């Protein structure tokens, strides 16, 4: 629902007359297609347009937000007035809107509708067949295909007017293996900020086989033991460990009010000197990238930790006011139904010098984690947890037996200091991140690395 500049100005005028010191209108029109396919056929689909408007106003450090998919001006003005009723400031004059800054330029020829629904199903079926053909123990393949073509327009009372178009697509491939009454799964989920040409460049069959191999290994695995262990986390989505262990704790929503273990620690050694943590929303074509963030700032590279020293936070406009610091191009929201907050984009540990082989060979006893299912953290304490997959025991420097069913827990501040080997093989993996401003597309990445001690919660 993309409003005209005149309507945008009338909403901003209405807000500023109501006693706020900043007002913003966010318009969104997103064409979204999701298709769920099993080896037995299409299991469900969801196609249509997500469309609406979000209005945000600030009064000092307080933020008020309203949203609706009723784009009629009278509805939006009524919601604006309801928001302003809670504000106590005097009227201000918004700046006239300047010339449009269009971050979506050059994407005019890209479209997901260039291929039919049927063609998309055929694409998915390639992955299904490759997985089912991988091994007789593969009992089922589930693939969720999605594409989204997101048009956004932002106007604010400082005169900014900006637009972006973000095309993203992803295929979430899950294989199930059955053996001796047990069913276990393997998973891979490639995605990018690209059109459908993305699938011409990746090896879908190889992805499906990876998921199938992971499922087959898991169904023959033994229960993971419990206790403190040295853990080697492989490159790629293993980087979610740092997303949970410290990424969320560096977001302004936690830091600004002192609700983070990293509040007030800029310039201090918070991690092993081997750790450099970067969040970069400006990476071209990546799943977590934001050419324009959801407040109108360009996505940028933010070095959060450099050689173990805390260098910065992820900051949005509101919390930036509280912290007295500038926004970092990190404001994100799932859709117009959420007010934006500073969130991670593409977050990764910079490469070091070791090889994966060296790291494993130097570990006498421990756990090798190939992938991470998901996790969460409490930023105030730093207590995090994540559930792992594609997991093996390391014995005498070698991967020996596959294990399943483990959750790793710890405190972010402690784990960061326990990193003692970092590989050179940086890779990014795709995923989702859930928090106050909704479910977002994110990349998490790292090279293979080793953490000396983590508490492993296994099934035995």
């Amino acid at each position, binding site marked *: 629902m993309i409003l005209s500049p005149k309507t945008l100005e009338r909403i901003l005028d209405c807000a500023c007359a109501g006693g706020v010191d900043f007002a913003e209108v966010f318009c969104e029109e997103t064409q979204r297609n999701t298709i769920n396919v099993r080896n037995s056929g299409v299991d469900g689909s969801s196609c249509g347009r997500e469309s*609406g408007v979000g209005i945000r106003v600030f009064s000092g450090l307080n933020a008020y937000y309203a949203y609706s*998919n*009723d784009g009629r001006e009278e509805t939006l003005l009524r919601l604006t007035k309801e928001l302003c009723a809670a504000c106590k400031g005097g009227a201000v004059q918004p700046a006239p809107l300047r010339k449009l800054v269009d971050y979506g330029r050059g994407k005019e020829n890209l479209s997901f509708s260039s291929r039919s629904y*049927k063609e998309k199903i055929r694409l998915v079926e390639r992955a299904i067949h490759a997985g089912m053909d991988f091994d007789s123990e593969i009992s089922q393949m589930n693939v969720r295909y999605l594409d989204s073509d997101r048009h956004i327009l932002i106007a604010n009372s400082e005169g900014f007017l900006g637009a972006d178009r973000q095309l993203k697509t992803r295929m979430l491939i899950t294989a199930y293996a059955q053996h001796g009454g047990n069913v276990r799964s393997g998973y891979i989920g490639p995605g990018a900020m690209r059109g459908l040409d993305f699938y011409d460049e990746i090896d879908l069959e190889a992805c499906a086989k990876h998921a199938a191999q992971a499922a087959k290994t898991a169904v023959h695995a033994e229960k993971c033991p419990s206790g403190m262990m040295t853990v080697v986390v492989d490159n790629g989505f293993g980087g979610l460990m740092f997303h949970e262990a410290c990424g969320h704790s560096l977001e302004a929503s936690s830091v600004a009010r002192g609700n983070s273990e990293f509040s007030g620690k800029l310039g201090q050694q918070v991690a092993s000197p081997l750790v450099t943590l970067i969040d970069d929303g400006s990476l071209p074509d990546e799943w977590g990238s934001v050419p324009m963030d959801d407040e109108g700032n360009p996505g940028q590279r933010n070095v959060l930790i450099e050689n173990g020293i805390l260098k910065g936070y992820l900051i949005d406009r509101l919390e930036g006011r509280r912290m007295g610091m500038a926004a970092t191009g990190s404001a994100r929201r799932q859709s117009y139904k959420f007010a934006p907050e500073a969130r991670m984009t593409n977050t990764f540990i910079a490469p070091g010098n070791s090889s994966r082989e060296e790291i494993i060979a130097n570990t006498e006893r421990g756990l090798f984690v190939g992938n991470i299912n998901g996790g969460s953290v409490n930023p105030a304490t730093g207590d995090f947890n994540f559930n792992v997959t594609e997991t093996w025991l390391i014995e005498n420097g070698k991967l020996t037996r596959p294990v399943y069913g483990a959750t790793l*827990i710890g405190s972010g501040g402690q784990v960061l200091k326990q990193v003692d080997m970092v590989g050179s093989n940086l890779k990014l993996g795709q995923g989702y991140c859930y928090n106050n401003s909704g479910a977002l597309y994110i990349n998490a990445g790292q090279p293979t690395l080793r953490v000396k001690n983590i508490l492993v*919660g296994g099934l035995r």
Partner: protein
Amino acid sequence: MVQAYIRKFTRFAMEQGLSRLAFYLEEKEGRSVSVYQGSCDKLEYFQQAQLFVEGEYEGFCGSVFVENFDESLMREQVDTIKETAIARKKLFVPYEYPLCPETEGETEWLPLDQMLEKLAAAEKTAYELDKQITTVQRCVCHERKQKVTLLDHQGHSVSDHWAGGNFFLGVSAKQEDQVQLGGKGKAFLLNKEYPDFSKLAEQGAERAVSKLGSGSYRTGNCPVLLEPSVVCQLLDAFMPTFFAKNIQNHMSVLEGKTGQMICGENICLYEAPQLAEGLVQRRFDDEGVLTTEKTLIQQGKFRTCLYNRQSAASEGISSGGNGFKASFSDEADTGYTNIVLQPGTKTQDELQKELGNGLLIDDVSGVFAGANPVSGDFSLIAKGYRVENGCVVKGVTQITVAGNFFDLLCHVKALGSELEAMDGGKGCVFCPALLVEKLMISGEELDS
């Protein structure tokens, strides 16, 4: 606006060759108010009308979801229905339209100033409970009114509406270098009284303070008392095990176990759509089928699973009224209304005494990743208290609790008498505390 759109869309779609139509209309409005240091720091309003349209084209069913009611998009919407119908080749099944009379009453929420007062009072209560409370991180109340209407091209229509809210207060407490968090939330129906926010605030703050000075626990199997909120989280995570679709697709440990003992004789589980305290108030599901009471587990025996129309049709039976959507934009899948794990007779004190020496767990996290609904296995970060001779002696943090949900239900020594509710999105679960013979605990061994 939406009703007029539906009428115009119906005319246009019929002209374009669609033979039947079914509309799922979700209308909702809501308010969210948050207080920080005594004043309103966040306020949110929303108002939405969202449509999911299914249409029959060449004998098959296609669909599209609609949030933008601009008439210029009708052609694109009809084309999407046609394209998905041809590709899917799924048969069109019209909604059912049971006789459900319109219910009376417009629910209103508290005026904003009164809500702010209640929240500020709750925040103050938390701060005043103990000097070690450093921050009330969140003190928020969400309220929402929602209406679901099913209608078609022939003028059939049926509606259900309800209104609910949710209060949450979270605090941090500090002692020397140790920070502990606590919180308490409660979901409620808006046609009843608002819960006592200040009392909940006190309980949330107490949780944080009581964990100060906590340590870990030794690794090994140990007897455990799970608080109702923890049991709710586990049951909510493993409810998909009871979905007929998952059983049919070999994705549930309950496959082939109808009529068999799957847990201890002391376990009964049932669905109660009309439960007065139920947080889900639905007379029919998202496919228009009446919701009905049913027993899932009776004295340990697996009795029935949850069917929507599709999973029921594949067994040649009728839907159980469990066809619910995850979101308005999705096709109806499986869900539930109010699921109750039947309580026992023991008070919390009695359960603690019976535990003797062991662990009382009052908080788990990471359920979405650490619980596997196919196998029933779980491994979760947890918090709680060390119990010795039936008395709480110390807080416990930085541990994991692991096991298998159905094994756990086979080893329940006693059930508490008090139920707690949780609305997890797919439906609402009510659970008592469970005293479990043993679960696997992982902690730092030094602190045993």
